[in-house]
Each structure stands twice: as structure tokens, then as C-alpha cells.
């Protein structure tokens, strides 16, 4: 059984479009995250939700809007896609919101904006 899953795995789209990436975890964790890995493989946190509430929001353009319908799901919606949004997006989860907890990552979604 997949612990943290993401759909789709690949997403190719045109500039200006709106797209969503879905994430689900079946680990019973309270906290979920979105990370972006750019073309140089640098990984940076974008958002973190604990029990459906936003707790970390890094300086991400407001075209990116995370939505957590319940604590097992954290979706990422991106409006007006730009070329620079091309990256691999990783979802992760951890048991709570305390420091000592390991984060478990999903398989990533490769987004290509043409």
C-alpha cells in the first residue's frame, strides 16, 4: 500500500492554464507539506498544513493555493501557470507538527509548462 501518493505523476500543460495536483496519505498523519524541486534539484518547502490548518506558507506566489479538505489530503492548485513553475512537486507528511518527526515523501509530480 502506498503511504503518500500523488496524482498525476506527470503533467504537461500550456502557459496560462490552471492545474491541480492531488496528494493523499494513508499513514494517519496530521501534518502535510508541499515542496518544489527545481531544475537544479534544489528542494524548498512551499506550504505545510496541520489538521487542515495552514502552518507554514513560504514566499510562494499567490497563484499557488493549497487546499486541505481533510487531514489525509492536501491538494495544490496553480493558477495562470508560468514557464518557471516547471519543476517536480513533492508532497510529504509527518505524524504531527513537532520537530522530532520524520517526513515521508510522495513519488513527486513532474510539471512541465510549455
Amino acid at each position, binding site marked *: 500500500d502506498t503511504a503518500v501518493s500523488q496524482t498525476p505523476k506527470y503533467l504537461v500543460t500550456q502557459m496560462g492554464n490552471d492545474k491541480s495536483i492531488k496528494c493523499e496519505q494513508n499513514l494517519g498523519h496530521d*501534518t502535510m507539506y508541499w515542496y518544489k524541486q527545481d531544475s537544479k*534539484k534544489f528542494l524548498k*518547502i512551499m506550504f505545510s498544513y496541520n489538521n487542515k490548518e495552514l502552518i507554514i506558507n513560504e514566499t510562494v506566489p499567490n497563484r499557488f493555493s493549497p487546499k486541505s479538505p481533510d487531514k489525509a489530503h492536501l491538494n495544490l492548485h496553480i493558477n495562470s501557470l508560468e514557464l518557471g513553475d516547471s519543476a517536480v512537486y*513533492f508532497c510529504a507528511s509527518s505524524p504531527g507538527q513537532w*520537530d522530532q518527526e*520524520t517526513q515521508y515523501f510522495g*513519488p513527486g509530480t513532474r510539471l512541465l509548462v510549455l
Partner: protein
Amino acid sequence: AQTVTQSQPEMSVQEAETVTLSCTYDTSENNYYLFWYKQPPSRQMILVIRQEAYKQQNATENRFSVNFQKAAKSFSLKISDSQLGDTAMYFCAFEANSKLTFGKGITLSVRP
């Protein structure tokens, strides 16, 4: 703000030999955690090992061990008996206040 530095962009090791990947970090936090993650060509992020900063004993997981030097803010990963399946990108990461900060990663190639 925390920073994590992995100064070596890539390394190569012969199968069955030992290799050490270096990592340094900078923080004013007292309570934090350090991790090494592996990212093979499949792109999956896989936890290799973690170290609690309050523990003096270095963490070990089978062939993987760390050399944690808190005063020097150094956290290196030693891979013993390297295997072809160890070929991957390795990321050092620091966690404090629920936020994981990654280094730029190092590409490790294991030669047969």
C-alpha cells in the same frame, strides 16, 4: 534562518568501498533534527538516516552511519560496502520549527 551546505556536487566510489558525504549547517536553534535523504533516478525521496541533535551518539542504520559534530555543525554520512543501488542523489536536511531545510544535494555514483 537555517542554512545547509553540501559543498561537493558529486562523488564517485568503487563498489564495496566506503565513501563519506559531507554536510554542514548553520543555526541558532538548540533543538533540531538532521536527516539524510536519498533520491535515486526514480525520483522518490527516501529517508536514509536521522539524528537528534540532543543525542551525542551517532546514528547508524546498517551500512549507513553519521558523524555528527554538534559544535562544528557538521553532519557527514558514511556509506560502507557501497553497492550499485546506492547510486543516487543524497540530500542533507535540517529540521526545526516543523520546517525541513535541504542542502543542494550531492550526486553519488557507485562504479562496478
